[in-house]
């Protein structure tokens, strides 16, 4: 089963995924239309600054078992059997934030959502772009990601690819291929150096 796999070491913090996510979860479905909507659609993937100011894309891992599901006071969180996606039912959510305390990744937000009940704040998080996937599309964040940070594949495939990349980068013979693209690695080094100089 394909899922969104995150490779944080490749993230440059461009935040295009956030824009694409918000657009995908808007009423109009277009970037221009989305900017004019009320309430303003918000991203469900969150690019934060890591310890060295590097980008870190953070999204729901759809954990199994899901701590948010066990913590939900309203019985609003469930798992879709065939996809494994953990969903929040907007009509049952009471905005109590019990799930925020359960989530070890801090990826649940609370606000009014264009696709939820009007004038009421609810818990909002990644839904694996379920409505896109049933139409044969891939999740919006993956589609827009330019650096290979977000991929749509089975976890097994991702692991195998990662293993290959790492072993190639480690092997002494031949030109090898860096595990992270040169440009990304350079950007990260610069950011880290900047921060270290700043802190001195």
């Amino acid at each position: 089963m394909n899922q969104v796999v995150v490779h944080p070491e490749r993230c440059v913090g461009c935040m295009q995924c956030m824009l694409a996510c918000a657009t995908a979860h808007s009423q109009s479905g277009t970037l221009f239309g989305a900017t004019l909507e009320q309430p303003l659609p918000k991203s469900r993937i969150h690019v934060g600054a890591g310890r060295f100011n590097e980008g870190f894309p953070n999204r729901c891992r759809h954990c199994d078992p899901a701590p948010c599901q066990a913590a939900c006071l309203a019985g609003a969180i469930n798992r879709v059997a065939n996809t494994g996606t953990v969903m929040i039912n907007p009509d049952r959510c009471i905005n109590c934030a019990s799930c925020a305390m359960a989530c070890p990744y801090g990826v649940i937000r609370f606000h009014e959502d264009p696709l939820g009940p009007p004038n009421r704040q609810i818990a909002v998080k990644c839904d694996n772009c379920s409505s896109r996937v049933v139409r044969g599309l891939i999740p919006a964040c993956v589609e827009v990601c330019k650096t290979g940070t977000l991929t749509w594949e089975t976890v097994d495939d991702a692991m195998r690819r990662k293993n290959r990349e790492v072993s190639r980068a480690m092997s002494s013979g031949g030109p090898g291929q860096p595990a992270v693209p040169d440009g990304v690695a350079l950007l990260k080094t610069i950011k880290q150096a900047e921060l270290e100089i700043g802190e001195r």
Partner: protein
Amino acid sequence: MKHVIIGNGIAGVSAAEAIRELDAKAAITMIGDETFPPYSRPMISSVLEGSQPHSKLPIRPKGFYNDLSIEPCLGQRATAIDILGHRVVLADGSTVGYDRLLIAAGADPRPVNATGLELQNIFYMRTEAHSAAQVAALPGATKAVVLGGGLVGFKAAYGLLRRGLQVTMLITSGYPLSMQVDPVAGQMIMDEMSRYGLTVEVGVSVTGFTGSGKVAAVETDDGRSLPCDLVIIGKGVLPCRDFIPRGQIAVDLGVVVNEFMQTSAANIYAAGDVAELIDLARGRRWVNALWPEAASQGRVAGYNMAGRQVAYPGSLSRNVMRVFELDVLTLGDANPGDTSGYEIVQSGGPTSNIYRRLVIKENRLIGAVFINEIEQGGILRALIENQVPLRLPATKMVRRGFNFGQLV
């Protein structure tokens, strides 16, 4: 294998589901004194407040018992456990035999010792029936008194304020939520509630209620009489343990269990508000009467009863309260009485509308209070729960941009 579960709250329900997950055939009987379908107890405060209808309380489908082939035995309490005979005795004298027994009886409101409790419009706040009765008493009510400044007292006061009543809260301790938060956060919460019309009186106890038929005033221990037409008692809860044979099952405040949710008696387990187990932040036994705890403990108890050994490392207190414009999050041991040996990092406060407090012991996070911007609370909970040494200075963790990426 015959499983019997006393209590059909979330701990009992989660245990039954876990047993069924592992064993399609085992017999399961659930004994519960509430006949309403499994429901969200915390949501009764939303019903009082008027933000959710009573009809939304159930959290499992109508056919729950049938779908999971559970034999429900509802409408009466278990009154005794006959350990030698492996059976539970019910109020009507009948008995239910078990191979494995789960005590998931939850807690009852702590009773108040006062005269006139039989008057109308005096309520506890624990069951869906209580909330229905409270809502029915609202028309015409204008002045309410809430006893207790703990979580339930607070939710009651908040709900009544939202319904437009004048509310006076009487608390015995020094400031509201003193069990959950430190004085700075307590003050911020109190200020917010006062802004919306709440009167709080500290260090006051109630000795009695007066009125003819209906409550008309509460009498305080300092000799005053406060007029009111509705009272909600929210002075905490006590584990339901009156039916438990003391000599045979270890009971402290709650029923004592080990990491497999086993009591001191063979084949008897306990979970939820009734259970007492190691608290991860405090490092000693504690009763954390909270929904997520009850759900997780119930599930782990169910797995163990069905034969899969699963350990539950310990419990942890955690809570979020939304009080008008404030979101208040508390975790673990947020307010240790004696702070020697603790490192406490605070930032923000009443003037900035954001407040953060971290309690650290031996470089491990053991407690936190956040006011507003609480979305990252789960990361802190995981840090407390996993008891990992902190790699990031605490001063960075109280900053607004703090996120999961900084920990990896």
